[in-house]
């Protein structure tokens, strides 16, 4: 489903990603973790072409992301993405947030899009909030709407960039629950997160990044059993201790 082959990326002189390679097969959930600034967000944004990369290639469902001939908007419409800061459209109601992509990008009728949007809103437990604006919702609620917005496009896979790290602790679980449910339904997911409880529950593999390198790429059992690299061991002991 997602193939990342020897990807390198620079910001000017600064190398953010060095020779990153991994594969995510259909239905798998892969958790990406690593210290701040290690390039996790950059890597996940390369997958749907929000960031360009200079070397290597990324293939999503048979389409090469870096190819200049690729219709990126079309590819992105099939790849759902959820951001750390939700990024709901603040000038639109919750319903409009769910509808706009479906009508403008997929060409669905307004009625069809509304029906689908409300169904998904119900699924994330927020049907009663349909007419509110994003600013009137809590962080956890906004993030669940953002997940619903991505799902409304009927994505073939989902990318999450630290979906819970901007949330108050008591709201983290309501978002993780939605994600666990998605994972259990067989959605292909690439998730940047430090929520190791989530990783233990649903991840098939865990990737550890440091300084732009993929240092560890192991099954969940291997990773939590005995991480091979010392950096990953240190990192794990640090985030598991609190």
């Amino acid at each position, binding site marked *: 489903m997602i193939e990342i082959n020897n990807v390198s990326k620079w910001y000017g002189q600064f190398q953010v990603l060095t020779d990153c390679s991994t594969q995510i097969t259909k239905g798998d959930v892969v958790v990406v973790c690593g210290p701040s600034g290690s390039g996790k967000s950059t890597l996940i944004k390369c997958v749907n072409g929000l960031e360009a990369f200079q070397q290597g290639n990324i293939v999503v469902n048979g389409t090469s992301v870096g190819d200049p001939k690729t219709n990126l908007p079309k590819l992105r419409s099939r790849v*759902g993405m959820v*951001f750390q800061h939700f*990024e709901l*459209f603040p000038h639109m109601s919750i319903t409009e947030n769910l509808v706009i*992509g479906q009508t403008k990008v997929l060409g669905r009728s307004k009625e069809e899009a509304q029906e689908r949007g409300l169904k998904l809103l119900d699924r994330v437990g927020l049907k009663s909030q349909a007419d509110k*604006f994003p*600013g009137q919702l809590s962080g956890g609620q906004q993030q669940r709407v953002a997940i619903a*917005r*991505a799902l409304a496009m009927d994505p073939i896979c989902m990318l999450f960039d630290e979906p819970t790290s901007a949330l108050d602790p008591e709201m983290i679980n309501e978002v993780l629950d939605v994600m666990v449910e998605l994972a259990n339904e067989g959605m292909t997911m690439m998730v940047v997160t430090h929520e190791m409880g989530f990783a233990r529950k649903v991840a098939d593999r865990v990737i550890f990044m440091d300084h732009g390198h993929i240092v560890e790429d192991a099954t969940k059992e291997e990773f939590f059993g005995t991480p091979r690299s010392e950096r990953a061991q240190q990192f794990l002991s640090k985030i598991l201790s609190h």
Partner: protein
Amino acid sequence: MSFFAQFDLSVIGPSLPFIWTGLLFTVKLTVIAMTGGIILGTLLALARLSPITPLAMAATWYVNLMRSIPLLMVILWFFLIIPLLTGKPMGAENSAIITFTLFEAAYYSEIMRAGIQSVPRGQVWAGQAIGMTYAQTMGHIILPQAFRNMLPVLLTQTIILFQDTSLVYAIGAKDLLKAAEIAGKNYNRPVEMYVFVAFVYFVICFALSRLVKHLQSRIAIIR
């Protein structure tokens, strides 16, 4: 005391219809220059922020040029040069409308550029991530927010524009000020007429600035 004793406000009544036509032109000029200026200014702002270097440079150059020349000179030059270039005279009114649109676009573009930059980068990503093209992301996500954030500043610029339209007096376009001047000459009462139009300018600008205040507080609630 003697100054006010000589004041004869009775000349204002009969000249009102004439002054009204002047006011209509002033309003028309303001509305067209505002609308055209905001549209053109938004395009200039997008060009300045685009990664296509020649386009960004051309837009920057245009904006800086317009902002470095006194408005009165732009009005005069445009009025004098266009007939030389096209061989056809252009009426003072049309010349004023075009000049103001082109000139104000430079100022509106700076406001819209700040507005676009006030929208967090993540909003562009969010639009693109659901498959929107550049044009769709700008049109549906970024520009509406930029416009909303900048509405009070855009209106303030429009108040300045409204006042600056009085400069078309220099090329003889019949705006509010010119109408007052003509009426003043007719009745030989220029001071009364100038005081009266000053009052009209004041009332309109004051009303607009109250509107800006009102909008500012409303926007503060929405956020």
